[in-house]
């Protein structure tokens, strides 16, 4: 069975008296261990789809199954617990808590787990080691570069070992070099740690790192690119 099954999903936003359709009867299947890129122009519905997959929003119609669980059946509190267990989210603007150190930021999702203080700290340190920031674990976000902040964001996303990682334009606010490092890191997480990744991007080069790219336009699927192998070394 596929990890994610999106079936006939539509999303309509109500803006005052106007109904704005964003997704229109979308069908998407995502396999375990897949690195999927969502591309499309602004307003195509890719971020909305990502939010639906994260359980941050609910579809107007249709169903979404993740790991065999239908998300629309979950109440708000159950959905929060589900997110804590299954989703690692990477934001475009990193969204680290500025008053916490890198280590504390990564520990944050672990507060929702039964781990004790020492275990939480060890897990967070390991996640920072994976992203190559063990030397910076006691630095505050303001003391890190954009690329380093995003790596802390990635460490925070993987620290709970979630079912899948959702990344909303993770390189959108970075320079080319930092973007390349982040893409390389995501690719490594997918290949070495077999993490399922869904990444929204505007950048064709970033999308080329994924094993499959879905092209959305006006809330519908317009095309699909499947790659047998992805270029080594991430973005140039």
């Amino acid at each position, binding site marked *: 069975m596929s990890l994610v099954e999106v079936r006939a999903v539509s999303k309509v936003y109500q803006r005052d008296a106007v109904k704005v359709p964003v997704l229109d009867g979308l069908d998407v299947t995502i396999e375990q261990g897949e690195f999927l890129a969502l591309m499309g122009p602004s307003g195509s519905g890719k971020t909305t789809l990502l939010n639906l997959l994260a359980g941050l929003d609910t579809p107007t119609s249709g169903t979404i199954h993740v790991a065999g669980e239908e998300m629309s059946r979950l109440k708000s509190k159950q959905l929060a*617990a*589900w*997110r804590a267990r299954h*989703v690692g989210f990477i934001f475009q603007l990193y969204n680290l*808590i500025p*008053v916490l150190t890198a*280590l504390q930021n990564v*520990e944050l999702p672990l*507060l929702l787990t039964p781990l004790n203080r020492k275990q939480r700290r060890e897990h967070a340190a390991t996640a920072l080691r994976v992203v190559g920031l063990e030397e910076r674990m006691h630095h505050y976000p303001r003391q890190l570069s954009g690329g380093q902040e995003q790596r802390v964001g990635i460490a925070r996303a993987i620290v709970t070992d979630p079912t899948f990682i959702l990344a909303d334009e993770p390189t959108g606010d970075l320079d080319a070099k930092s973007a390349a490092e982040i893409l390389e890191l995501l690719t490594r997480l997918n290949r070495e740690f077999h993490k399922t990744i869904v990444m929204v991007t505007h950048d064709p080069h970033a999308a080329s790192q994924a094993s499959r790219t879905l092209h959305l336009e006006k809330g519908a699927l317009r095309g699909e690119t499947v790659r047998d192998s992805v270029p080594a070394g991430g973005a140039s």
Partner: protein
Amino acid sequence: MTRGTLVIANLRRRLRRTILTVFGLATALFLFVTLRTFLHTLQTVGDVGSESRLVVSNKLGIVFPLPLAYRARLSGTDGVAAVSYASWFGGIYQDPSNFFANYAVDAESYLPMYTEMVVSPEHRQAFIADRAGALVGVRLMERFGWQVGQTVTLNGTIYPGEHRFNIRGVYEAGRKGFDQSSLIFHHRYLEELSRGQGGDGLTGWYVLTVSDPNRAPEIARTIDAAYENSSAPTRSQTEKAFNLAFVGMYGNIGFFLNAIGMAVVFSILMVAANTMAMSARERFAEIAVLKTLGFTDGDVLKLVIAEALVITGLGLAVGLGGAMIAFNLIEFDMGGFVPGLSVTPTIALTAAAITLVITVASGAVPAWQSARLRVIDALRYVA
């Protein structure tokens, strides 16, 4: 890291604002506790007065004297066991701000009547033997660093001139709440000082001990009836009622103090609510991130309330703690103006209850807003 770390880190985010808010709350709570303590002390001042002692003063008011000639007739009144008298002196020591009660008494009859004034036999004897001698409360001695044997000069306000008194003894309170900040001296010395100034043969008020406290109202009526048609009609009442009437000279002070207290509480509420609202609004994006990570609405609500609780709790600790140190430990008495100020458990609990209300009231709206926040909307707050 724990959730507590997150709360503390958030409070440190704008440390100056947090400190100012805490001190604003502390100042307001200190003021509230002080007002309540002052009011409580005034309201309980009557408790210090005795039910078995009657105070006879001029019916026209306490500032009008009574003839000393009344003493013999009062002594002969049925049910009266002892009679003494006293007069307000109103002397100032060095500066008007050094206010304390000072009055003349007929020592031989006054001291046996006021068993609450505990004086050693040596000091009592030395005081009685010295015409210009004075007996001083222990708190007043401490306040000015006076020593027994020292001569102090008071500037007369009612009786002009500089008047010298020899401190011959110290008295302490024999029961809680009794004043320990007064200076008393011999009435016959006052009569000497005031000779020729229109005060000859007069006294401020009489104090009577009645043999049966249950008969006090009847005896008071008898005395007032006896002098009803004289040139100086009397008003007799128990010492307790007299003290309360004295407090009544301040006017409806209770109403004003309560009104000020409520205004203070309302001000605290506004300050705390504004701070909490600003603090939460600034962090909507971060709250959205927490929710994305899996924090529930309840988790977020608890975090915001916890922040409010820490701020108001610190304000309470500093404000109430400061008041308790000032009044219960150091026994600050407003320069002797209001002796016996003490923060009671009831006042402390009232302050704690108000703090709790402020916590809930100030934290409730931002906590509810944060809890109800839709993640996808809140992420738009990202700068």
